[in-house]
Each structure stands twice: as structure tokens, then as C-alpha cells.
């Protein structure tokens, strides 16, 4: 076995150890350790990605002495490596972009606790990405939930505490349903390892045994994770949690936490239930309907919203609707589009949150939409970031959002029965997206009286660097999409 095969396990354990060490350090050193570990984990993930691409195959790694059905196992393929790398990049950029606000928002005695949360969030995301065992996934889902709660309530005021409690209740409901689903699957198959469950499930499907509990288990697993990733009717926790938390937390929650759960759904669809069995069950239609509803209702809510942060949060509901709609199409192309949209949405939404915070700061921290008038001239880089993010979300070519919309429509044309609904929903949702993003972009560039001249002096270099990196990431995803799509396709083929 090559030494690189150890890297997934190392990156998980390294981030856990960093969290443990951070609890003894001061906030300043915890921040340094966190950044250092993030860069190392990013390097390790890039190595894993390169290794799996060059080998053209996945590898499994036993966590301990005992092989798979008895012990734990993790598994890394192209898609896992790509996901882990991408999560690290987004996390580094979100932490850098929100750093100034973090110091203003959070009391100094809680700085190191915040970095414990981020480190454990990273470890749980990595474990959810790499795991090949359903129960390991559950354990790290728990860690992810608690870490996300900590990230929300690190600011101590009424709104964030309320948002955190709401998030906790909804998220624990999701965990509970997920756990019941795992229990039913274990009872039917006697395994927790994904590959073995898949064998048993396909045998059950062929023999026609235990059909009702099987459908129930699939439904519980999907609905549990859908609640946690804020699919439309279960999204009530989302706007407060994203809108009132500190800016790094909002960026990480929207682009990492919910994406981790969605990736777990993909793993369950392919590796646990089997893609064909999943398509044959009727659960897929439920996901499709909820996704389409979310695309439209989330955008309508965003148009009605007056606070820019909450507007972006509602836009997340719509984008998560897109992803689940892609699952609901029940075709390979739909899955590829969904996975690409995970990347494009993660890159864009974090950019939008961070630049919206800059715009709001330039307007004296006011939450009212009308005060944003001319903010794009007062804070040039944030204005550019927001404009590019908005254009990408609407689906203008050269940015990442265009490619995902293109992939979705191509997938929709292949699906016969759902083609018309999907295309209409895509069109309506795109127009609604354009309404609220264009409204904001026009607002931030409208002239105001006694305006100060535009100054290009850089006050906060870290913030500028993070926005520039996000913009570059967005353009890379938009321009070199064929490479990424081929990586996603090869990764998904390794899942079978």
C-alpha cells in the first residue's frame, strides 16, 4: 500500500487533534494552529485527489487491525478527494474573509472555543466525505450538528441564541430520523458497512422481501438529511441561523455544513441503497417535488426580504432546492449537475455573504435595504464581489452558476416525464433570482448625494485577498467546467 493511502485518516485525526490542542491555547495561537492545520489538510486532500486520478480507481483504508465488516473502514475516490480539497479551500477563505468581524463580534475569552468548533467541523466534514460505514457517518453527523450550533451562538445575543435553539431542534429531529433509518436498515441487512448493505439491499429488491421497511428506511434517511440541509418545507431554521451569526459562521454554514449532508445523501443513494433501487422507489419523486417548490418559494421569500443577509439566506433555500431537484431527476446527468451545483453554490454563497458584510459595514452597519444605496462605491472590492456573486447565481456565462444551470437543463431534457416541470421551474427561478440580485446590485451602485470620491486604498488586505480568491474560484469553476465535470463523472462511476 502506498503511503498516500494513509492521508485521509491522517487528515481526519489531525484536525481532531488540533481541536484538542486548541482548547489549551489562547485565541491567537488557536487561530494559527487552525490555519496551519487547514493548509496541511488541504495539501493532503490534493495529494489524495492526484493519487486517485492517476490510479484511476478508489482505495479503501481499514481504520485499525480488523478488515471491513468487523472494523471501520474509510474509502477515497476522485469525488471524495475533490470534495475534501474544496471544503478546505472554502473554509480557509471564509475564515480569512470574516476575520475582522469575528474579532468585533466575539468576546476574547471565546476565541479559542470558536477554533475548536471549526477544527471539529472540518474533521466531521472530512469523515462524512471519506466514510464507508453508515454508523461512522452518524457519529460525525452528530459532531457536525453540535459544531454548527456552537458556530451560530458564539455571538451572545437574543436573536442568535434563538436561531441556535431553532437549528438545534430541527437538526436533532433530522438526526433522530436518520438514526431510525440506520436501525431499520441494520435490522434488514445485518451490516453497517456501505458495500455490504448495498449487496443485501439488492438481494432484498430482487427477492421482493421486506419492501415496506426498505422504502421506510430510504425515506427516513433522505428526509432526515434533507431536514439538516434545509430542503424547502424544513427550512424554517435557516434564515435566522445564517442571517444573525458572525460572518465566517454564516459562510461556513451555508457552503460547508449543508453541503456535507448533501454529499452524504449522494453517498447513501449510490453506496447504500444503490442508484437503481433508489430510482425505483417513489422517494425520488418526493425529493423532486420539494426541490422544485423550494426553488420557487425560496426565491419569492428572498424578494420579499428587506435585510440583505437574510435575503442571501433565503436564496440558499432556492439553491438547495436545485440540488435536490437534480437528485429527483433520477438520471446520471441529473446527479452530475447536482454535484457540480454543490461546488458552484458553495463558492458563490460564501462570496456573497462575505461581500454583503463589507457592503453593510460601508453603510454604517445598517440592516435596512435602503441604506445600502451607493455602498458599492464606498467599498469597491465588496461591490465587485457581490456583483460577481449575483451574476453567477443568476447564471451569466463565464461564472459557475451558468454551468450548473446548463447541466440541469441538459439533464432535464433527457428525463421524459419531468422535463417540462423542470424547465419551467428553472426558468421561473432564474427570473426570480435575477429580480432580487439585480435589485440589490442596482441599489448598491445608485448615486447618493454628497458622495465621497472612490478610494482604492486597501484597508483590510486579508478581506480583499479572500474576495479575490473567491472570484477566481468562481471563474475557474465557470471556465474550466469540463475538467471538473469529467472529474465528477469519474468519481460517481467509482461509487457504483
Amino acid at each position, binding site marked *: 500500500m502506498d503511503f498516500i493511502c*494513509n492521508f485521509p*485518516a491522517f487528515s481526519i485525526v489531525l484536525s*481532531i487533534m488540533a481541536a484538542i490542542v486548541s482548547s489549551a491555547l489562547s485565541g491567537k495561537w488557536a487561530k494559527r494552529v487552525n490555519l496551519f492545520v487547514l493548509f496541511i489538510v488541504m495539501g493532503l486532500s490534493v495529494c489524495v485527489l492526484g493519487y486517485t486520478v492517476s490510479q484511476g480507481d478508489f482505495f479503501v483504508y481499514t481504520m485499525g487491525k480488523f478488515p471491513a465488516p468487523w*472494523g471501520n473502514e474509510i474509502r477515497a475516490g476522485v469525488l471524495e478527494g475533490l470534495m475534501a480539497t474544496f471544503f478546505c479551500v472554502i473554509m480557509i477563505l471564509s475564515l480569512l474573509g470574516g476575520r475582522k468581524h469575528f474579532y468585533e463580534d466575539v468576546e476574547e475569552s471565546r476565541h479559542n472555543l470558536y477554533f475548536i*468548533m471549526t477544527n471539529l467541523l472540518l474533521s466531521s466534514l472530512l*469523515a462524512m466525505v471519506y466514510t464507508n460505514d453508515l454508523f461512522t457517518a452518524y457519529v460525525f453527523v452528530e459532531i457536525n450538528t453540535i459544531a454548527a450550533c456552537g458556530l451560530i451562538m458564539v455571538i451572545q445575543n437574543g436573536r442568535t441564541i434563538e436561531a441556535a435553539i431553532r437549528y438545534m431542534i430541527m437538526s436533532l429531529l433530522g438526526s433522530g430520523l436518520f438514526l431510525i433509518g440506520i436501525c431499520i436498515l441494520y435490522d434488514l441487512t445485518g451490516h453497517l458497512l456501505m458495500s455490504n448493505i448495498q449487496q443485501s439491499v439488492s438481494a432484498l429488491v430482487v427477492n421482493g422481501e421486506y419492501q415496506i421497511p426498505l422504502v421506510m428506511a430510504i425515506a427516513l434517511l433522505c428526509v432526515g438529511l434533507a431536514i439538516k440541509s434545509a430542503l424547502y418545507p424544513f427550512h424554517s431554521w435557516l434564515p435566522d441561523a445564517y442571517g444573525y451569526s458572525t460572518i465566517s459562521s454564516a459562510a461556513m454554514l451555508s457552503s460547508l455544513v449543508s453541503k456535507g449532508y448533501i454529499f452524504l445523501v449522494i453517498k447513501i443513494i449510490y453506496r447504500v441503497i444503490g442508484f437503481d433501487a433508489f430510482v425505483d422507489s417513489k422517494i425520488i419523486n418526493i425529493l423532486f417535488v420539494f426541490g422544485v417548490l423550494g426553488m420557487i418559494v425560496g426565491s419569492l421569500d428572498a424578494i420579499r426580504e428587506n435585510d440583505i443577509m437574510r435575503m442571501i439566506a433565503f436564496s440558499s433555500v432556492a439553491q438547495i432546492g436545485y440540488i435536490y431537484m437534480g437528485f429527483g431527476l433520477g438520471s446520471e446527468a441529473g446527479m452530475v449537475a447536482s454535484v457540480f451545483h454543490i461546488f458552484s453554490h458553495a463558492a458563490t454563497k460564501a462570496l456573497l455573504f462575505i461581500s454583503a458584510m463589507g457592503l453593510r459595514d460601508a453603510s454604517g452597519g445598517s440592516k435596512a435595504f435602503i441604506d445600502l444605496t451607493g455602498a458599492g462605491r464606498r467599498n469597491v472590492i465588496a461591490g465587485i464581489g457581490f456583483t460577481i456573486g449575483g451574476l453567477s447565481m443568476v447564471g451569466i456565462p463565464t461564472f459557475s452558476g451558468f454551468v450548473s444551470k446548463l447541466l440541469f437543463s441538459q439533464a432535464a431534457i433527457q428525463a421524459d416525464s419531468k422535463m417540462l416541470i423542470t424547465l419551467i421551474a428553472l426558468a421561473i427561478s432564474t427570473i426570480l433570482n435575477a429580480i432580487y440580485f439585480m435589485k440589490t446590485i442596482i441599489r448598491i451602485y445608485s448615486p447618493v448625494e454628497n458622495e465621497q470620491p472612490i478610494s482604492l486604498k486597501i484597508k483590510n488586505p486579508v478581506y480583499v485577498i479572500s474576495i479575490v480568491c473567491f472570484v477566481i474560484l468562481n471563474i475557474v469553476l465557470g471556465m474550466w467546467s469540463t475538467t471538473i465535470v469529467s472529474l465528477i463523472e469519474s468519481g460517481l462511476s467509482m461509487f457504483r
Partner: protein
Amino acid sequence: MSKLRSQNEYEKTSSFRFWQWLAGEKDPYIDNVEMKVQEEFHEFPIQVRKREIDHIKLHDKIYDIDHNKEIKFFQGAYRVSAVVLCSVIMIALVLCASYLPKAGSPDNPSVNEVAERYVEQGTAETGVINTVTGMILNYRGFDTFGETCVLFIASSCVMILLMVSEEKLKNLPKNLEPKDDKILQYVARIIVPVLMIFGFYVIVNGHLSPGGGFSGGAIIGSGLILYSSAFGAEKIRKFFNEKVYKCIKITALILYGCIMTYYFYTGANGIPNIFPLGTPGNILSAGMIFFINLFVGSEVACTVYSFYALFKRGGL
């Protein structure tokens, strides 16, 4: 060439009046502006009463939850739909359970090679008598490591929420401290040592008898809670303050993490393990399981006590 003004001329200018006003010699408003002393605002008690009643009536009308039909309808519909939804889910789950394989039957799918190997070869492979411990700490060690991290992150999260500053912790209000209860203190004096020893026994016998780090740690933690609630924060800080807490917790977790990393690395690469399995049944046997139990136990004890202390006074 400048021209000097005469005194009379100067006295007519506004700048002269301004300087005069600034020096306080003359108020420009007197004799120039009509002035009237305002009457003091006066309200009869009966008017005050009327105003208050009006306010209460208006307030009641706006916030009248008992007679507001929309709110009542919403609350009713909310309750009914919640009950209906919960009962539908309950019935669906119960129905689903009735379709599951019969519990305890020998041809269940869950009776397979996995459970067979745990039961039959567990002792030989991991050196434990208590198979459950062998399963959670050796076969599925990664899950348990994650589970310990859940405890760690939960205590950190409670700290974010409830931790107060050090000065505030030192000057706690007196009503948070226990009263000097003689009966409680006498009982605690007898029970706490027994609890500690029993907890330690459960931890170190984790690989031999039912128990282990999680349950033993909880017993020790409850002993600490009893001591603290009988004798107060001052007494327990003499031997278990924040420094000791951090030392124990971090040492235990780091050593646990190191052992697990070593175990993953050697196990996956097929390198023999340095932990000897020993004779099954001895206290010092079962390789790393004995140490892991110790670390998990101390971590759990710290976490349980820290929950109590944080909820009670916001710090250790």
C-alpha cells in the same frame, strides 16, 4: 486707511451685542421678545386614572389573545396539525416495525458473520472477556473515538453558551452556594469515597466485566457533583479547579488520539502492534483497551462534572 468708529456707532452693531451677550451683561431676548412663563403641567388624579385605564384597554384590545379569532384559529390549527402529523408518523413507524424480521429469531439477517466473529473470536483477538468493550474500543475504535469527540465538543459548546468571566465567578452571589447542610455533608462524606473507588473499579475492569470508560466516568463525575453540592465551590476547587480539569481532559484526549492514530496506522499497514494482549482475565491485559478505558473514563468524568458546574455557576 482704517476708520475708527465712535462708541455710539459701535454699540449699535451686532458684534457688540454678541460680545455683550457672551460676557453675560445683557440678554438680547429681554425687552425684545414677548415672553410668558409656562404653566406647570398639572393632571387631576381622576384624569391620570382615566388615562391609565384607556391605556390598559387599548393594550388589551391590541394584545387580546383570548378573543383574537385569528390567533386562536392559528393556535388551534397548529396544535391539531402537530398532533395529526405526529400520530401519522407514529403509526407509520409502528406499522413499519411490524414488517421487520421477528426479534430473536435465529434466521434474522442481523445474525451473520459479523456478530459471529465478535462473539467467537473476540477474546482471542482483542484479549477482553467483556466482548462489548472489545467491540467498541478495538473493532470499531474509530466510531468510539468520534463518540468521545462528541462529548468534548458538547462541553466546549456549553462553555461558549454559559461561561462567565473570572471576576464574576469569584464573587458569586451567596444563594448559589449550598447551605451548610449537616446531614448532606455527613452522607456525602461516606458516599463520595465509595463512589470514586467504585467508578475507578468500573473503569479499570472495563475489559473484564460490564462497564468501561463511559459508565465509570459517569460514576466518578456524579461523585464530584455530590461533593460540590454538599460542600460548595470553594472546597472542591482545592483539588479540582479549572487548571486540573484542563490538564486531565487535554492529556487524556491527546493520549487517546495518539494511541488511536498509532493503531490506525499500524493496523492498516499490517505492522505488528506493540501493545501485548496478555492473559485474558488479568487486570493488565487486552493491550490498548485498558489505557483507552482510563482516558475515556477521565474525559467523561471531567465532562459530566463540567456540565454541572457550568449550568450551576458558569465556570468550574
